[in-house]
């Protein structure tokens, strides 16, 4: 790695530290959730682990005060970058009334927060793709300069909504960036059993848009690809498909046991490329991160995660009867 890569991308030292912090915060919140799950305190976790670099690299390439995002359930890195807080996420994990995503109605990681332009997501995969296209259509109609950014897993790219959404975007040259986070598995099913194409990005040509495959463990590589895609989008050159390749470091979710379908060696091998470490190494080698700063960052994040956990654990649930609210406008 060249030590000046981030500079050549126009990223300041502060910005890359900010990126690193966001990745680390996502990782630490996620790890805490697993502990809480194993301790019986929260019923369910689904992880970002292994995908933080792609999520944060992409988000930093967007205009985080104007663009819209339609994240999928692993995108803790995206929503943190877009303004959701650790507390918000913990409130959601504990299903508490104050959870801004859903008031405790949805499972954790079903993100949504209007004030931060995070579109509300559901569980059926890939439905968010046409939504992001719809937002991009609105941008076009309203002659606004924002773009929309949507993510999904590689398995999910086999749903009809991927095809229909990307085709719509391609035909109308809409400012939407689709990023497939290829973590090599869809629950137990490996990529070879999901897709026969060599690369997920090979699908782009069928929609008349450029497609790129990038190293999803490298936040700078993802940053670069998304940045360029955003430039094209606001210049009226239309949509882009990006595939960020990494690996799912945890089981699919807290309900899954991945030992039944993949072996430890493969997981261990992938851990060597874990972006949390490799990006830290980059920052160290670039002379931006040292042990002192690392400790400081870790301490700060620990404090944030602790506070968020305590707050959320003690927060009240929504009242039972509030289940009747907000079916329609009230």
């Amino acid at each position, binding site marked *: 790695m060249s030590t000046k890569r981030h500079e050549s991308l126009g990223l300041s030292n502060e910005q890359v530290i900010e990126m690193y912090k966001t990745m680390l915060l996502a990782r630490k919140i996620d790890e805490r959730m697993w502990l809480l799950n194993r301790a019986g305190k929260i019923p369910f976790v689904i992880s970002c682990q292994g995908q933080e670099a792609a999520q944060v690299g992409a988000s930093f390439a967007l205009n985080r005060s104007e663009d*819209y995002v339609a994240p999928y359930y692993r995108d803790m890195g995206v929503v943190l970058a877009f303004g959701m807080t650790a507390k918000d996420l913990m409130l959601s994990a504990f299903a508490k009334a104050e959870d801004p995503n859903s008031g405790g109605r949805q499972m954790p990681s079903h993100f949504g927060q209007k004030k931060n332009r995070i579109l509300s997501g559901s569980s059926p995969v890939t439905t968010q793709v046409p939504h992001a296209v719809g*937002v991009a259509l*609105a941008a076009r109609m309203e002659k606004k300069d924002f773009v929309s950014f949507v993510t999904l897993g590689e398995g999910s790219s086999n749903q009809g909504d991927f095809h229909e959404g990307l085709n719509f975007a391609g035909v109308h040259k809409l400012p939407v960036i689709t990023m497939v986070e290829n973590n090599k598995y869809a629950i137990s099913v490996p990529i070879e059993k999901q897709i026969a194409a060599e690369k997920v990005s090979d699908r782009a040509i069928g929609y008349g848009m450029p497609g790129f495959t990038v190293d999803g463990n490298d936040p700078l590589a993802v940053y670069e690809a998304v940045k360029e895609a955003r430039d094209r989008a606001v210049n009226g050159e239309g949509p882009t498909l990006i595939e960020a390749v990494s690996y799912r470091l945890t089981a699919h979710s807290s309900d899954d046991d991945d030992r039944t379908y993949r072996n430890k060696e493969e997981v261990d091998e992938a851990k060597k490329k874990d972006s949390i470490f490799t990006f830290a190494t980059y920052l160290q080698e670039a002379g931006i991160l040292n042990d002192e700063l690392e400790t400081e960052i870790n301490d700060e994040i620990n404090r944030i995660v602790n506070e968020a956990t305590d707050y959320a654990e003690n927060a009240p649930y929504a009242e039972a009867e509030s289940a009747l609210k907000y079916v329609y406008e009230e």
Partner: protein
Amino acid sequence: MPVMSYIQAVTAALKEEMQRDEKVFVLGEDVGKKGGVFRATDGLYDEFGEYRVLDTPLAESAIAGVGIGAAMYGMRPVAEMQFADFIMPAVNQIISEAAKLRYRSNNDWNAPITIRAPYGGGVHGALYHSQSVEAVFANQPGLKIVMPSTPYDVKGLLKAAIRDNDPVLFFEHKRAYRLLKGEVPEEDYVLPIGKADVKREGSDVTIITYGLCVHFALQAAEKLAEEGIDAHILDLRTVYPLDQEAIIEAAKKTGKVLLITEDNKEGSIIGEVAAIISENCLFDLDAPIQRLAGPDVPAMPYAPTMEKYFMINPDKVEKAIRDLAEF
């Protein structure tokens, strides 16, 4: 007051709403240059341009899903499904997304989308251009389903649907498009979604129905009036969620209830209507609740013999009313 056909009322409502609010736009297959296969969007492309009358690729899940996304942003999409039968590929977007968005986000997000679709038979449309599909969606809180029966209702209800801040399915009977004509005010008006409407006051038998069957019921009622049978006709207008109060009142009024739908009988909207009545005013009834509906076969065939056998018509309604009156 000008007289309009049912489909002209659709076009008028769209046009006026698009003039009133720049956020309103139409999307669907062939809605633009061609003006729709039924010409419901006739003239709108010329008046409002390509982006507000958008010819989409042939993909219903995208039509619904892109519409929902635009609606989340704050636009007012009116999506057309070319035939109600072709709404099926969009069911996931409608049921999982549009219907649940407000609820799942605890009121943070909403999807003010209207989805229009021509439904119904009697037009040699065979199995896939004749269906009534409302029952597929009539168990999905978060959705509203409107099925108007007159040009007047079309204009007022379609405007209400477009202005509604929640998703509305708006099913238009395709045989009514040119068959039904009526007075429609030129000025702006909206009719309340969620309210049924008494289309005829009567004292002997209560008929509860919707869509084109309202028309058949009115025809039958006129004829029976000559025999001294006085039918009360309630038009549901909104088939989901149902106007329980109006249903109960109408049932109590005569104590004899005939429910009519063009849909297959089992599992149709009128089953729920019967359940509401039998839960709330069982002891006000003087006869079993009768249902007149299509037979339980997948959809109406193409051959005229079989299509006619399937379809409701004024004669079938007349017979059912008479039988009930004589009960």
